[in-house]
């Protein structure tokens, strides 16, 4: 008996030590992850003299809050923001719409050959975008679309294999009886999709919408290739230009970068659960 108790106590102590070590490491890492963001904001609040001070002040004695305002006039910040959100919004719309239909066609309708076709479709996830980049550019050029939002938005209205996959997985979990009951009531496939499936799919659609938004919002290469006039740029292009043109205005660059990050960070904090669920979905069913 005594031996058993001491073993258990020993266990408890060991556990506690392990726990303490784990906490310490996690805290250190959390600090390391937060630090660049902290440094971003702090640098944004410095004067152009403090920027080059050695050693750098960990927090500026007189924070220059007006740097944020100045950064939005140094580049047409709000214009770029609006462009970015417009492109991202349209992309979300296209992706959600098209992927819903495609996923429904692959998951809820029994037709010969759908599995093999789905596999072929799914394989496009592995296609490096560089392979199609040049011909697509030339096609869009012939259409006169280069220099507009269209090349960035229109392709998303034709589905995205990853999100079709995600929605299909989700749709497969919905009992077949629901559809059958609706069919007996005389509902068409479109009716079933609209009245029965979409209400149930909402959480999955939210995941698709969020992921698409963040992905488009962060994109750099697409806008770099297709957008030309400065007033059409996205915020990522604008920030890059900032870096090229005003190399030394670090504090303003940092301020603009901070502001550019806010939308996605805010979005994350308001929809944390959806994000976490979405991440579990993308990874687990691979």
């Amino acid at each position, binding site marked *: 008996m005594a031996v058993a108790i001491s073993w258990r106590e020993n266990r408890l102590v060991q556990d506690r030590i392990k*726990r303490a070590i784990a906490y310490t490491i996690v805290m250190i890492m959390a600090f390391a992850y937060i630090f660049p963001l902290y440094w971003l904001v702090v640098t944004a609040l410095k004067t152009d003299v403090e*920027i080059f001070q050695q050693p*750098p002040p960990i927090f500026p004695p007189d924070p220059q809050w007006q740097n944020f305002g100045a950064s939005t006039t140094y580049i047409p910040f709000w214009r770029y923001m609006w462009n970015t959100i417009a492109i991202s919004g349209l992309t979300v719309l296209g992706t959600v719409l*098209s992927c819903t239909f495609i996923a429904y066609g692959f998951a809820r309708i*029994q037709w010969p050959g759908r599995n093999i076709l789905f596999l072929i479709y799914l394989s496009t996830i592995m296609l490096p975008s560089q392979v199609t980049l*040049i011909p697509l550019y030339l096609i869009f050029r012939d259409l006169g679309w280069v220099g507009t939002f269209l090349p960035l938005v229109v392709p998303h209205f034709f589905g995205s294999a990853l999100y079709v996959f995600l929605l299909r997985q989700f749709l497969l979990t919905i009992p077949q009886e629901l559809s059958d009951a609706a069919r007996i009531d005389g509902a068409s496939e479109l009716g079933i999709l609209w009245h029965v499936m979409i209400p149930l799919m909402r959480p999955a659609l939210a995941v698709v919408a969020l992921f698409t938004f963040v992905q488009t919002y962060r994109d750099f290469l697409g806008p770099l290739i297709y957008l030309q006039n400065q007033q059409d740029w996205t915020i*990522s292009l604008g920030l890059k230009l900032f870096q090229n043109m005003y190399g030394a205005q670090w504090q303003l660059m940092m301020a603009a970068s901070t502001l550019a990050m806010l939308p996605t960070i805010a979005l*994350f904090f308001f929809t944390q659960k959806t994000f976490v669920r979405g991440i579990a979905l993308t990874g*687990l069913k*691979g």
Partner: protein
Amino acid sequence: MGWGAFLMTIAIRRPRLSKQQRRSLLIGLLFISPAIVGFTLFNIGPIIQSLQYSFTRYNILQPPRYVGLNNYLFLLEDRVFKIGIQNTLYMVLIGLPIHLVFNMLMALLLNTKIKGLSIYRSIFYVPSITPVVASTIVWLWIFNGQFGILNEFLRFIGLRPIGWLTDPNWVKPSLIFMGAWFGGNTILIYLAGLQDVPHDLLESAELDGANALQKTFRITLPMISPVIFYTIIVNVIGYFQYFTEAWVMTSTRDGSAGGVANSAMFYSMYLYQTAFQQFKMGYASAQAWILFMIVLVATLILFKTSRWVYYHAEE
């Protein structure tokens, strides 16, 4: 569209299909028609076109001229192209394993029933959803040779400052270092996988006297091996397309990029420069096709050697 019609004729000609089946086939194809159109217009079509362009010289402004295998032969002797391949392989073979192991360690750590998990989860995840350009700009400043906080720290502890981005030997490790910061997504994928590992399995192993290390290697990791496999595939493909971080870190006012002596020139960057700065569309298409083949072979090898992935019978 051609695909749809093609598939439909095949389907309709098959006598085995009942009227009901034919109807559902039609409706099914109708529902997936955006995918068929998209697949044809944005995937298959361009892939074939890209192959055609790769045998031409084409600067967009003048009509393409057939040059046979010249582009491919020229690539064999293109030094910067080879540097691009080497640097990209460096990221895939060194950067990627480091990231995945690191992310797994972080996930294992977070899986120890730690308090305040959701806060830590947010902290690790947030960097991965910030705009790449915005966060890379911060890192540019952190890595700055003279005023960067990293070198400030090195000087503080009495070490020599490092040319994080200017020393050809350091620029890729610097990019990997920064890349870890962007990896929260993978941490969360692993964490979700870890939380799905059945508890009874771990408990029974514990009763059998397995220690933590044994539990991790014998049970936990095999149980989430499909997740690991998934992240490997996705990240390998991603790293072959590595672009934005390196571009923002190294590009200069005159539009060139790649760092000192091309030490940070990656495949996609060279392809971008060839296509959209020098407008050698044929030459760039040849590069794209070689990339395609490399990625294809890499994924095939990964799938062929995926016997270590353990699919437990669930579905």
